[in-house]
């Protein structure tokens, strides 16, 4: 079995905005709220054009178990429901709201009644929370587990991506909310340990959390080396508990729940005040930004408004949701800030340029830096040779697309891109194998019947 340290890369920190207390963006004239902001089913709109909405009012209900409701972050009038192509290339419904600038809070905003674990999970569901570290996994689904199975609750405050400081600001500005959330989790799940993992390049957060968490039983702060991807779920679990989440299993299978610190603060705030997830602290930075800072933005605000607020030095050539290691580049500045957007990075032409790949020199850096010990160069050649069996043996399915391989590749091979394609190839192959096996079984059954 695996032992020892996980690999990673020393990414540049570039936490330029760590001291920038988040400021509120002036209410944008229009917001565009997408229905797909979580892993799983998209939310279903419950408003129609012409409806008046207020801050904290539901505009879409959860579209299934694996989903989350959506609330308005502005007061105004629903203009229309629209179809857009979202940044992942899929069609998505959006609710377009014309704001009135009043930011009137909805009358229905009141703290939920939380008495036990089930009502706690229901409150988390009602608050519309999804994994705010970036993954967008519906939080209520994650928390809907038997408390006896939970041995360690791990709060993710690693924030290992360069530039981003929104979680850092959560830990500094909303330490009480994080700790209140931790107390609630401890109350309903009674884990042996409740650990907040923070990279040691944020000593102020370590100090604040140590101070604030003193009264919480089992609470501890783990100051972890600033080695990207420290905040990766499986990485964080291993580095705080020593447990390895096996292939195809979930953190709860090794007794762990991992929750992002901002997610936890949002839950705590909802339970205290009844205000669901309607706005996000977003780090605005990058070489095209004149005044890098943290901004409080209603969910659905077009990126253009956020960039204009922080000021542009030049025309941005590449704009990202999230950090430079795992962030998604957006095709248009009309794309909205989403629930799981923790940063908007805008880069000038020089930084936006895609590197030119050259031939692999087999230096092995992709292998040496892969946190999961995969062999990206071998995966690339197996993909190019269309060898799904080899891809299976190389465990490409474990890849979390953290970007360490591409980052460290001196030949600038597009290894993450190939890993994504290879995963799709393997999935298709597995599905075909399964279908073929089923067909064979059915035929044999038929034969027997004859």
């Amino acid at each position, binding site marked *: 079995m*695996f032992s020892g340290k996980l690999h990673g890369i020393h990414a540049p920190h570039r936490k330029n905005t760590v001291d920038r207390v988040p400021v509120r963006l002036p209410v944008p004239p229009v917001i565009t709220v997408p229905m797909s902001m979580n892993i799983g089913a998209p939310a279903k709109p419950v408003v129609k054009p012409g409806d008046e909405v207020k801050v904290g009012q539901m505009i879409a209900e959860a579209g299934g178990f694996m989903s989350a409701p959506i609330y308005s972050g502005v007061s105004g009038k629903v203009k229309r429901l629209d179809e857009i192509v979202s940044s992942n290339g899929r069609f998505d419904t959006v609710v377009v709201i014309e704001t009135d600038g009043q930011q009137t809070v909805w009358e229905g905003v009141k703290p939920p009644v939380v008495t036990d674990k089930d009502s706690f999970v229901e409150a988390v569901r009602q608050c519309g929370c999804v994994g705010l570290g970036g993954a967008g996994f519906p939080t209520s689904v994650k928390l809907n587990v038997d408390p006896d199975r939970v041995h360690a609750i791990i709060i993710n405050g690693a924030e290992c991506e360069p530039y981003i400081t929104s979680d850092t600001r959560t830990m500094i500005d909303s330490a009480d909310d994080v700790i209140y959330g931790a107390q609630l989790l401890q109350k309903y799940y009674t884990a042996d340990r409740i650990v907040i993992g923070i990279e040691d390049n944020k000593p102020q957060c370590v100090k604040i959390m140590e101070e604030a968490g003193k009264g919480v039983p089992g609470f501890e702060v783990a100051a972890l080396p600033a080695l990207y991807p420290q905040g990766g779920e499986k990485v964080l679990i291993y580095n705080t508990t020593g447990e390895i989440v096996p292939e195809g299993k979930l953190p709860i299978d090794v007794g762990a729940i991992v929750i992002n610190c901002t997610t936890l603060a949002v839950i705590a705030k909802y339970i205290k005040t009844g205000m669901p997830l309607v706005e996000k602290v977003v780090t605005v930075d990058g070489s095209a930004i004149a005044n890098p800072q943290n901004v409080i933005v209603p969910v659905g605000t077009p990126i253009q408004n956020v960039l204009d607020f922080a000021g542009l030095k030049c025309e941005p050539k*590449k704009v990202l949701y999230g950090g430079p290691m795992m962030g998604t580049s957006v095709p248009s500045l009309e794309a909205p800030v989403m629930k799981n957007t923790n940063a908007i990075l805008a880069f000038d032409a020089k930084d936006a340029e895609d590197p030119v790949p050259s031939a692999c020199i087999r230096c092995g850096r992709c292998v040496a830096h892969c946190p999961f010990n995969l062999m990206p160069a071998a995966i690339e050649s197996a993909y190019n040779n269309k060898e799904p069996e080899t891809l*299976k043996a190389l465990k490409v399915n*474990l890849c979390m697309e953290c970007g360490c391989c591409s980052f460290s590749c001196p030949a600038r091979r597009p290894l993450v891109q190939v890993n994504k394609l290879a995963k799709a190839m393997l999935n298709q192959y597995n599905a075909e194998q399964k279908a073929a096996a089923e067909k064979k079984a059915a035929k044999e059954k038929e034969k027997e019947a004859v």
Partner: protein
Amino acid sequence: MNNMIVSVNPHIYAKDTTQTIMRDVLIALFPAVIASIVFFGVRALLVEVVCVAVAMGCEWAFEKITNKPVTVTDLSAAVTGLILALNLPASIPLWQAMFGSFVAIIVVKQFFGGIGQNFANPAITARVIMLVAFSGAMTNWLPAAFSNAPADAVTAATPLAIIASGEGELPSLLQMFIGARGGSLGETSCLALLLGGLYLIYRRVITWHTPAAFIGTVLVLTALLGQQPLYQVMAGGLFIGAFFMATDYTTSPPTHAGKLIFGVGCGLITVLIRVWGNYPEGVSFSILLMNILNPYICDWTRTKPFGGVQA
């Protein structure tokens, strides 16, 4: 805003490129180049310049003719040319040196698909071919400056030849270390090669595994066999082989375990050839043979994926 760039993550990269890595190797070879000039004169520099120029020229010409992207600026051809030169005697006829560079780049590297595709180290393969083709010129060692050779000597025996034949006076250990002894023009100075090797390890171009396993194996085995281990380690092409040729990315394993196996294998074959073989020196052959085993070592030493479950 339709002209924004959309691409897959990551969006930032480490500073190292193929070119910076090759440049580091050239920098690391610089002390050995200086040493070669000190001990064998300007003729050494001439051989080096010719080999590098021909290697780069061949790469450029081949890629032009075959309509492939020209990769001369990645400096890998320059590295191959220089390493080959450092493995030749200072007295080598220039046309033979040119032939060697041609073989290294065209036959061993480009015929197999260019950088990253060759199965064996181009410089070593070319050297071995030259050793067979021009065995006289390839073993015609000039006396080094500051060595024990008489002032009027035209040729000098290498320490390994002295050990093998039992005739002649071995250089002192200090002379061995600084490189004042007969041998290929870049292999003699352990000091210069060690400086270069440490620079490569410091710059993380190579890891310690291969050189340590290679040199360590030779040291231990020759000690066990009573074969003057300190001389064995500093003689021949062991240092240049261990630091600069056995660590070639393309023809050695990427994992630490693989590198250790590769290094031990090289050391073992080197000692076998030196002690029981017909040739006094076996470093080139050992690396070449291990190059051939490399795909198998790579297969044996595949990494164990984190959380992977055996099906």
